[in-house]
């Protein structure tokens, strides 16, 4: 099952440049939360602070508190330990190109020393089913490489790979921006189903996508969280004029 996320007084920096300013947010478990805002507003930086990817950039640092369930992200938790609980899917699908479909999904488990073939088979099956890809690839699990799939299939393969380690939270950074509307529809349908078991945070430039898939939406601007509310409220009657100007296309 998914867990909630609590962020308190989060500040993020790239060397001396501050990218996030005092972010406070509570993400509800087993819901989809969308983050919107113009390019450079800090939404991707924010999502990367949730699984300690931000600090992989030289001179980048984070201040503040992030709790994934009861796990404190910046208080002694190792990145490996954290990322077992927090999966991530990126803008561009990035399957391991030389690995088979099966091995792509099983990679995370194998890396953690998981070797039982029967159990691996089961996890790969379940993960591909959860990612709505099983029916399309079940006959070529070992024959085809991850890179031989279409863009939409590759993205769902990456989702299956993330799900295989049984995370509680799934972070998605513009997962559909390189996909056609049919593939986008499949991923959105998937998000809808996955939130029954996972907590999903999705960064998207597509506001209609945020409106379609997320129960909650946060609007970022210039590194600050301007407004966070139920998605319906953000798209019908936001409280802050800057949010309204953004969702109505008056800037951004």
């Amino acid at each position: 099952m998914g867990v909630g996320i609590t962020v308190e007084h989060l500040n993020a920096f790239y060397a001396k440049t501050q990218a996030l300013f005092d972010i406070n947010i509570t993400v509800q478990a087993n819901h989809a939360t969308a983050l919107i805002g113009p390019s450079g507003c800090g939404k991707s930086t924010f999502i990367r602070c949730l699984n300690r990817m931000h600090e992989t950039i030289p001179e980048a640092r984070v201040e503040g508190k992030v709790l994934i369930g009861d796990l404190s992200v910046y208080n002694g938790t190792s990145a490996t330990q954290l990322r077992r609980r927090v999966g991530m899917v990126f803008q561009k699908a990035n399957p391991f190109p030389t690995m088979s479909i099966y091995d792509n999904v099983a990679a995370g488990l194998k890396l953690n020393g998981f070797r039982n073939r029967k159990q691996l088979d089961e996890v790969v099956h379940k993960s591909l089913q959860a990612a709505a890809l099983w029916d399309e690839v079940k006959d070529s699990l070992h024959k085809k490489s991850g890179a031989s799939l279409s863009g939409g299939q590759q993205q769902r393969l990456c989702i299956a790979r993330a799900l295989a380690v049984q995370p509680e939270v799934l972070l998605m950074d513009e997962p559909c921006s390189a996909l056609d509307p049919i593939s986008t529809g499949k991923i959105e349908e998937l998000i809808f189903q996955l939130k029954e078991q996972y907590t999903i945070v999705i960064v998207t430039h597509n506001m209609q996508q945020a409106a379609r898939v997320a129960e909650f939406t946060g609007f970022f601007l210039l590194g600050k969280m301007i407004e966070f509310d139920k998605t319906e409220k953000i798209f019908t009657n936001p409280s802050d004029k800057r949010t309204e100007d953004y969702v109505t296309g008056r800037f951004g």
Partner: protein
Amino acid sequence: MRTRFQQQMEDLREKLLRMGGLAELAVDRACQAYTERDLTRCQLVLENESLINAAEREIDEMAFDILATQQPAAVDLRFILAVTKINADLERVGDQAVNIAERVMDMIELPAAELPVDIPRMATAVSAMVRRALESFVEGKAELAQAVLEMDHVVDRMRDESFIVLVRKMNEEPQITQQALDALLVARNLERVADHATNISEDVIFWVLGADVRHHAQAASASPRPERSEP
């Protein structure tokens, strides 16, 4: 800035205002026709109904196109929903003006009768409601719209009083029953126009504040909002 979208919204707004002008003119002409027993004005109301109907279709089509192609949100979405509803109300205002004109045409064929009802006063109040409802739309001001809602009670009372005195008159002087009945129907038509002006005002409040005040829900229950963005 979505320039084309903003232009489409502005075109929609202007089109609705032109339609509002037609509906307002139709009511004023019908009321003047009643006061002056003027057949020409009645015919003008009937002839111009087709213009209002055509405008209704055109506005709905424009709104439909914007919804389909621009996916408006927040204040823009509320604006378009409000426009489509105001559009339907204005078309009904036009219909009521036609009903009044038809009653007047009926009355003109009958001998003039002294009726104890001040239809012109009621018409003045109703015209003011329509005008102010449209002004609240032009200005995007919820307080103007709120004032219209309060006027509705006054018109309702006028209609009730008209009914009482006209029914009494029919009992006392059965020979002018037809004229009294026509006046009574005109009073009812005017009250309906006031109801449409009320609906229009409620839609303006919804657009501006995001608050649903229909059926006596309070505008104050809506969260405070920043100044409205121009459509």
